[in-house]
């Protein structure tokens, strides 16, 4: 069922039965037999001179991107499947895109969130402006919370100017040296042999940086295909990956150099967390209404 799209009252979540918030379902399969809730869709307010947009959480990312591109702007939401992923889904999953090296993690884009709490109340976190320290930062808490603290209904996100030029290059080179040589590349990817680089900005700066990369680099159509699972590793742990991969130990990977996200063919083992995380969850959802996604 849908949340009440017009007044965002949260009434759609009254009651105390278990629910699961779903977006485009590009990141997970909702558990069977649990009531699904979907956020409404659509852009509520977009003022380009503000460089922010207010959007219903169920809006498909590609639709938002198109509206923003018409004004030379973009949101740093780069999901793998933009035609299906929703804005709320990307934020709840907390997965940053390939350009994180330049534009930062997805958690830094959320300025305000309206979410429905486990009690079925509409709650506002943050505010609509680009700088805000009024109260505790619940927005950061919501990003990556996978629907376990509340259901995102409407959000305000920070926008960026679109770069004049975006250019992917590839070549066989030490990705760490490449990253050191360039000033703020948008992405440096590496599969253990080949390095991909995304340069963005003013056309002549991009050309200059591209030629500084050397003759070993050629234009690429885009980033390489990535294995499906994301690992979160210290950026300094990446060089060791190549050694184990070439010894045939570790399978294929595409690493985001300087970031530490590694795309691999099997999931990262579950890592333990401090009991504090469970205390937060229990305070926001004492009855465990929200299924963990």
């Amino acid at each position, binding site marked *: 069922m849908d949340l009440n799209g017009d007044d965002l009252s949260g009434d759609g979540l009254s009651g105390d039965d278990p629910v699961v918030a779903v977006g485009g379902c590009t990141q997970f399969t909702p558990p069977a037999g649990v009531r699904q809730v979907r956020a409404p869709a659509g852009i509520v307010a977009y*003022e380009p*001179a*503000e*460089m922010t947009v207010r959007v219903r959480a169920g809006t498909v990312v590609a639709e938002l991107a198109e509206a923003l591109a018409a004004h030379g*702007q973009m949101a740093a939401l780069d999901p793998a499947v933009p035609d299906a992923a929703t804005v709320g889904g990307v934020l709840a999953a*907390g*997965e*940053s895109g390939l350009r*994180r090296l330049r534009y*930062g*993690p997805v958690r*830094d884009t959320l300025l305000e969130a309206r979410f429905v*709490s486990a009690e079925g*109340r*509409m*709650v*506002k*976190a943050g*505010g*609509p*402006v*680009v*700088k*805000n*320290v*009024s*109260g*505790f*930062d*619940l927005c*950061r*808490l919501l*990003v*990556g*919370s996978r629907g376990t603290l509340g259901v995102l209904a409407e959000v305000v996100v920070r926008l*960026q*100017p679109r770069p004049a030029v975006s250019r992917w290059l590839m070549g066989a080179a030490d990705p760490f040296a490449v990253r*050191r040589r360039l*000033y*703020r590349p948008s992405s440096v990817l590496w599969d253990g042999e080949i390095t991909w680089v995304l340069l963005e*900005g*003013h056309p*002549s*700066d991009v050309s200059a940086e591209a030629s500084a990369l050397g003759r070993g680099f050629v234009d690429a159509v885009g980033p390489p295909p990535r294995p499906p699972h*994301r690992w*979160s590793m*210290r950026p*300094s742990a990446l060089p060791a990956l190549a050694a184990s991969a070439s010894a045939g130990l570790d399978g294929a990977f595409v690493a985001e150099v300087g*970031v*530490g*996200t590694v795309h691999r063919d099997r999931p990262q083992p579950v890592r333990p*967390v*401090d009991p*504090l*995380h469970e*205390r*937060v*969850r229990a*305070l*926001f959802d004492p009855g465990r209404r929200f299924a963990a996604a």
Partner: protein
Amino acid sequence: MDERLAADLVAVLDKRRVRVESLELALYARDASVIEGRAGVVVFPNSTDEVQAVVRVARAHGVPIVPRGSGTGLAGGSVPLDGAVVIVTTHMDRILEIDEEERVAWVQPGVLNLDLSRAVAHLGLHFAPDPSSQQSCTIGGNVANNSGGPHCLAYGVTSAHVLAVEVVLPDGSLTMLGGLDPDPPGYDLRGAFVGSEGTMGIATRIAVRLTPLPPAVRTMLADFPTVEGAAAAVSGIIAAGILPAALEMMDAEITRAVEAYVHAGFPTDAAAVLLVEVDGLPDGVDAATVQIDEVCRDHGARHVRVAADLAERALLWKGRKSAFGAIARIAPNYYLHDAVVPRTRLVEVLTKVYEIAERHSLVMMNVFHAGDGNLHPLIVFDRRVEGVMERVHAAGTEIIEACVAAGGVLSGEHGIGLEKRDFMHLIFSPDDLDAQARLREAFDPNGTCNPQKVLPAGARCGDLQRIPEGAWI
């Protein structure tokens, strides 16, 4: 003063670092705001272990704790109430590790903001958040207040530069929030802790991101005959798709005060000036410089001066950053406000703010982070004048209300502390406040860590706080 408490604290630190003299207690009873509280004991731990020990002793005595860095906060965040134990981090001032390749530094909380940037400058790196108080504020304070600065427009505020925080929780236990990997498991409690104003524990070690110094920088000073023109140029620059590294505005009063103080060549007959900086790769910087020049002239700028060299650039920034020093020469007291409005409403809100000051016969100046709509109306006064504090506070309240009415928020960088706690209901409903109180409760179930700050009384059901003596004086 509680002598048994002091004796137990001396047992875990030493006599020199547990202060109960009235001079010390008075010094640590306030921060850089006009709010005054009452400290019970002031302690100066040297290590994480000592912080834990202090927290446990205070807890055993049922006395609240207040974390404190340099005390430059402007919202009363580190002002102790009811004889709390003030835990000062200034002795914990070591840079523990600098990883040039990973561009990360581990620091103790008492490291001064500018000291870190100085320590890594030879590597071509810096710590991007640059509050005007950067010579004296601590990184622990920056983390607690999620502080900003002129260059946070493009680089992001403190939260974007903190990777991990080791925290002594209010029960004395130790935890690590965040990590050096991009997506640590669980909730982003690192993000929740940043900006928690000392209410969720004490940061004892912090991993911060270091940012490369830009290869090209251009600093411009645009001089406007009207405040409206300058404010409209701000929106114009953003609307043109430029996100400058910094975009600051100073009105006529403050420009004259600064010029008299630093002699940087600021135009003393301008109604407002914009200080704009762009950085990055050289051609992009040149293109943006030309565009900004055009936008400013389109909005009536008389001159747009581009700093010729490093020295001129440094001088322009010195002017901006010494605004507060300049004011000290004009009147003995000032009250600095901090609120954010949508940047497209700057002109309208500024007009209102000037009207409010005039109605209360107060001298008001504006020097602020225009690029992100972060207003800093500054009221200068002499508190010895009878009845002036009432007018200062009445004007302050009206300014906040005007910002909120324009769709803005209470604070962009100074925080809520005690100063704005009772305004929180202007922008948050009881349900919104209750959600924030739950987060705090997860960290501090007994409410012993910097109590009575940020959230108004009764934010969480059954939570009855007293209005502290002396707040909002």
